[in-house]
């Protein structure tokens, strides 16, 4: 808007300035030429009067002054005469008097007592007289001032009009792009059903809309194909893996009969089978989530109790000391709308992650944040570097801690699943630093108002 405004201001100012100076020159030149020509005629009348009827000179001068609206000052044979005794001789400069005395017709524009005057001096040797005619230019000055105000106002109006028009045109032109940008943002946020509405704003916009929708269709098709492939592969692998796990289980039952080297191999095999089973389960769940096939069973549940149960459940599996669960007093009765299974999976994955990479969860804290509840899962491990905070939620992302040989290898999909589940519950999750110096996973879920 500023650029449009400045552009219009520049153009209108330029046009206004050229117009003003053009008109000004024409007006001034015309006025002065007219006055000069009239002075010549008046001088000729005075000369004829002095020649034919000198005694009527006063009447003639009076008549000229009345008709021409000017003031005459005569120097007849060295004697100054005027009908207006108040008219100061200062109206005529000494230089103009000198020039006229030397036989030159002279003109000058002067300011006399704040009045702008145009003085014409004409020597007439034939009648021993110099005539000075003083013309008032105040009217011209007033006209020019009015013209300046009009042009200035017009320039201002044009500037405002141009800026407004520019903004209107640019908004109208950019509107389709804004719609495309919004749609792209929705698709990036996972809403693959978003499409651009077909408009008739112009062939280019229609072409853009068609191309964009076609691109999204292709993208969705590819994503669905990939998800289906991953799901199919996972399902296909599940049966042989189950058979493998059962075989390993049978071998475990006869462990004592195996040689020590075979026992060690069996231990490794069982661990890898467990990891592989977890990976397959996570892949299937992610595929279902991507395909939108995961059904939600939403319930209004007390968040404090739900969290405690989930933590206890995980700890039964993990073993060891149960982490501290801190709940703000006003959250004991607070409720959230969640799918219980997904919520428990979120807590489990976060605590498993802490178990794998940070020696376990040290605290699970619940606090209120306006209309939301904040659930923090803190550990006391090495923490997550600043640059990895967002990446840890990506699929198969291997962070700095994962490269430590001492840690138990995870599937690489746990946190990705957490984010998908949190999103499905209308929540959000971020990784940050915990007060204990380790990592903190902070989840926000909307609270549900329960009528008392």
């Amino acid at each position, binding site marked *: 808007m500023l650029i449009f405004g400045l552009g219009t201001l520049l153009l209108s100012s330029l046009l206004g300035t050229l117009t003003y100076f053009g008109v000004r020159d024409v007006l001034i030149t015309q006025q002065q030429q007219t006055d000069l020509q009239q002075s010549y005629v008046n001088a000729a009348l005075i000369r004829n009067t002095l020649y034919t009827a*000198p005694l009527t000179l006063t009447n003639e001068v009076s008549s000229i002054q009345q008709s021409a609206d000017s003031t005459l000052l005569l120097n007849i044979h060295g004697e100054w005469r005027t009908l207006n005794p108040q008219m100061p001789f200062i109206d005529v400069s000494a230089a103009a008097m000198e020039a006229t005395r030397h036989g030159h017709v002279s003109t*000058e*524009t002067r300011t006399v007592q704040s009045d702008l005057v145009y*003085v014409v001096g*004409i020597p007439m040797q*034939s009648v021993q007289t110099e005539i000075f005619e003083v013309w008032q230019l105040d009217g011209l000055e007033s006209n*020019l001032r009015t013209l300046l105000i009009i042009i200035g106002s017009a320039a201002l109006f044009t500037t405002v009009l141009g800026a407004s028009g520019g903004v209107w045109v640019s908004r109208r032109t950019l509107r389709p792009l804004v719609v495309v940008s919004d749609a792209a943002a929705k698709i990036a946020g996972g809403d693959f059903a978003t499409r651009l509405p077909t408009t008739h704003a112009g062939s280019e916009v229609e072409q853009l809309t068609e191309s964009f929708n076609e691109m999204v269709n292709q993208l969705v098709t590819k994503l669905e194909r990939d998800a289906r492939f991953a799901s199919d592969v996972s399902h296909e692998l599940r049966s042989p893996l189950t058979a493998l796990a059962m075989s390993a289980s049978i071998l475990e039952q006869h462990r004592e009969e195996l040689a020590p080297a075979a026992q060690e191999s069996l231990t490794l095999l069982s661990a890898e089978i467990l990891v592989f089973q977890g990976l397959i389960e996570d892949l299937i769940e992610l595929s279902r989530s991507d395909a939108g096939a995961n059904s939600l069973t939403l319930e209004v549940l007390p968040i404090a109790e739900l969290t405690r149960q989930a933590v206890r459940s995980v700890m039964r599996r993990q073993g060891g000391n149960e982490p501290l669960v801190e709940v703000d007093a006003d959250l004991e009765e607070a409720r959230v709308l969640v799918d219980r299974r997904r919520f428990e999976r979120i807590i489990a994955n976060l605590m498993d992650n802490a178990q794998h990479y940070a020696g376990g969860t040290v605290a699970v804290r619940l606090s209120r944040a306006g209309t939301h509840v904040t659930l923090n899962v803190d550990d006391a491990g090495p923490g997550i570097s600043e640059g990895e905070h967002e990446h840890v939620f990506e699929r198969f992302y291997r962070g700095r801690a994962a490269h430590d040989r001492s840690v138990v290898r995870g599937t690489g999909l746990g946190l990705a699943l957490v984010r998908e589940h949190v999103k499905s519950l209308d929540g959000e999750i971020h990784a940050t630093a915990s007060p204990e110096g380790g990592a903190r996973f902070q989840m926000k879920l909307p609270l549900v108002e329960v009528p008392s």
Partner: protein
Amino acid sequence: MTRRRHFGAIGLCALVLSGCNLVSTSSAPTLINSNNVPLGLLAPTIPFSDFARVLFVTRDVYMVNKSELVVPEPQLVTSPPSLFDVLYYIPVGPTTSEQLRGISSQVPHSLVVNQATIQDGVALVDVSNQLAQLPSVARRVAVAQFLFTAVAMGASEGIRISINQTPFSLTLANGTSVSLITPSDLAYLKKS
């Protein structure tokens, strides 16, 4: 901040311009080329005349000073000056600068000089009726103005006045009535 500065500068310019003359004044007079001056105004003689020129000479026209005495005041008249041209200035009265010096005239503005000539040293002057309507003292001063102006123009013998072609006699201060008024008759009214 920058935008505010721009608007401030524009406002300042407008303020400065509003106080300026929109028509520029000249530092020195512009001289017009003599070839561009029409109507023969710069010619030494009057066009379409027989190489005529109007010359002015100064002649004494008698007015009245603060002491009620007639005194000569120089007046420009075209050359060659005629008695009629010179007497014309008596009813016109003193100029502004003369008035500032206390000079006046006893001849009313409404008086018209109909005719004025000099014959054999005597000025023959016909005027309108306003002269007869003046009080006797003022009338004598008015006649003195005509008399001494005519004498200055060569009417050494005096003046004979008629009012609308009717001979006029002036009653002098001693009670005598004269039709030919000589300089000695009114010498007491002239500043020596």
